[in-house]
C-alpha cells in the first residue's frame, strides 16, 4: 500500500494518472478500431443473412486464442514490436473483434421477421431497414458484445508493458524487474479497480441504451440475450461471456 499513498507516485510521466491514461488510450484505440471493423461488417452480414457460420464461430475461435500468445506473435510479425504501441493495439483489436461480430450478427438475425416484413411493407429500403429497425433492435446485444470485448481488452492491455509499452502493466513489469513487491501489488490493484469500473460503466451504458432491457427488469434481460446468443452459437449452457482466454 506504501506505493499508492506516496504522493510522488501520483504525478509525472511515470505517475499513476499518466499510466491510467496510457491504459485507457490502448483500450480505447483498440476498441474504436475493433468496432469500426466488426460492427458494420456484422450488421451487413446479418442484414443480408450471409456468412452466419463464420460470424457465429468466430467467437468460438477467438476464445481459444491465448492473449499473451496473440500479443507475442503480433509483436514479432509486425514491425516495431518493442518500440511502437501499434503491434499491441493490433493484437488487442484481434481479441476484441470476435464477440462484437457474433453479438452484432445474432442481434440482427434475431430481429423478429414480422417486424422486418412490416417495415418493408411500409416501404423502407434496405438501408433504412438496417438503420431504423434492425440496428436499434440489435443494440442491446451489440452493447453486450462491446462490454465483453472491452473488459477483455482492459485486462489484456496490461500485457502491453511486456513489450515495452505503457499502461498500468508497467508497475507490474517494472516492479518485478526490481523485486519491488509493493509496486507490483499497487499495479495489480489499479488494474483490478480499473477493470471493475469499466465493467460498471459498460453495464450502465448497456442499460440506458436499451429501453427494452429496462422494461424487462434490468440485468435479467441481458442474461436472456446472452442465452439467446448461446442458443445460436450452439453452446448450451455456456456462460457465453467469450471472455476470450485470459482476462
Amino acid at each position, binding site marked *: 500500500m506504501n506505493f499508492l499513498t506516496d504522493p510522488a507516485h501520483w504525478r509525472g510521466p511515470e505517475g499513476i494518472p499518466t499510466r491510467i491514461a496510457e491504459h485507457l488510450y490502448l483500450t480505447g484505440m483498440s476498441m474504436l478500431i475493433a468496432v469500426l471493423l466488426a460492427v458494420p461488417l456484422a450488421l451487413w452480414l446479418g442484414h443480408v443473412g450471409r456468412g452466419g457460420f463464420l460470424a457465429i464461430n468466430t467467437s*468460438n*475461435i477467438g*476464445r*481459444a*486464442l*491465448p*492473449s*499473451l*500468445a*496473440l500479443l*507475442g*506473435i503480433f*509483436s*514479432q*510479425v509486425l514491425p516495431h514490436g*518493442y518500440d511502437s504501441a501499434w503491434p499491441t493495439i493490433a493484437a488487442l483489436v484481434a481479441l476484441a473483434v470476435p464477440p462484437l461480430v457474433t453479438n452484432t450478427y445474432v442481434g440482427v438475425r434475431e430481429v423478429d421477421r414480422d417486424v422486418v416484413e412490416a417495415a418493408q411493407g411500409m416501404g423502407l429500403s434496405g438501408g433504412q431497414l438496417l438503420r431504423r429497425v434492425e440496428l436499434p433492435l440489435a443494440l442491446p446485444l451489440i452493447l453486450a458484445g462491446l462490454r465483453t470485448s472491452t*473488459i477483455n481488452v*482492459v*485486462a*489484456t492491455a*496490461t*500485457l502491453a508493458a*511486456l*513489450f515495452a509499452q505503457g499502461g498500468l*502493466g508497467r508497475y*507490474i513489469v517494472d516492479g*518485478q524487474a526490481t523485486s519491488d*513487491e509493493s509496486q*507490483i*501489488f499497487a*499495479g*495489480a*490493484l489499479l*488494474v*483490478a479497480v480499473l*477493470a*471493475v469500473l469499466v*465493467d460498471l460503466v459498460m453495464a450502465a451504458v448497456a442499460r440506458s441504451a436499451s429501453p427494452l432491457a429496462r422494461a424487462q427488469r434490468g440485468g435479467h434481460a441481458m442474461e436472456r440475450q446472452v442465452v439467446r446468443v448461446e442458443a445460436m452459437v*450452439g*453452446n*448450451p*449452457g*455456456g*456462460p457465453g*461471456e467469450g*471472455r*476470450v*482466454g*485470459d*482476462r
Partner: protein
Amino acid sequence: MELLASGTLAANDADSLIWWDWVRRHLDDIGTALAQHIQLTAIAVGIGLLVSAPFALLARRYRVLSGPILAASGVLYTIPSIALLYLLGPITGFTSLLTVEIALVSYTLLILIRNILTGLDSVSDDVREAARGMGLSGRQLLWRVEVPLALPSIVAGIRIATVTTIGLVTIAALLSQGGLGGLILDGINRRFPTPLMIGSLLAIALAVLADLLLLGVQRAISPWTRSRR
C-alpha cells in the same frame, strides 16, 4: 571468404522468426514447457470441478444462495487474471504454485457452476416426476437421471473452462511457474523471437486442440444435438 559467407548466412538467418536449429537443440525444454502447461491446466480444471460441484448443488437446493454464489464468482471473473495473480501475492507468495492454482481455479468456478446449474435446471419436470413415480430417491434421481441429462452442459462448461485456463496458464508464467508462457517470456526478455514464437504457436495449438477434443466429447454424449446443425 568462407567465414564471410557463413557470416552473411547467419545474418540472413537472424531475420527469420524461428531458428529451427535452436528448436532442435531445445526440444527437451519445449517438451517440458508443454507438459507443465498441460499439468497446470489439468490441476486447475480438476480442482475447479471438485469445488464447483458442491456449490452448484448447494445453490440448487437453497435457491436464495444461487444469487450470491453466482454474483461472487461473477465479480471474481471481472478481475483481470494478471491482477488476481499478484493480488494474491502478499498472502500466498509472489512466485508460488499455490497462488497460480488459486487464481486459475477461481476463474473456472463461474463457468463450471453456471453450466452445472443450467444443465440440472434443463431437466424437464416430467422426467423428474416420472423418475419419482418409479420410486427413485432424491439421490438416485440426481445421479441416475439429472446428472446424465445435464452432462452435455457440464462438458460444455469443462470445455470453456479448459480453453480459458490454457490461456491463463500462459500469463501465469509471470510467476515463474514455467509452461509455454515461460518460453514466451524468455523470448521477450532476450529479444529473441524463436522461443516467443514457438511458445505462442504451441499455446494456440494446445488451446484449439483441447477445444476440438472436448467439442467432440460434447457431441458424442449428446447425439440428439448433432442432427440439428
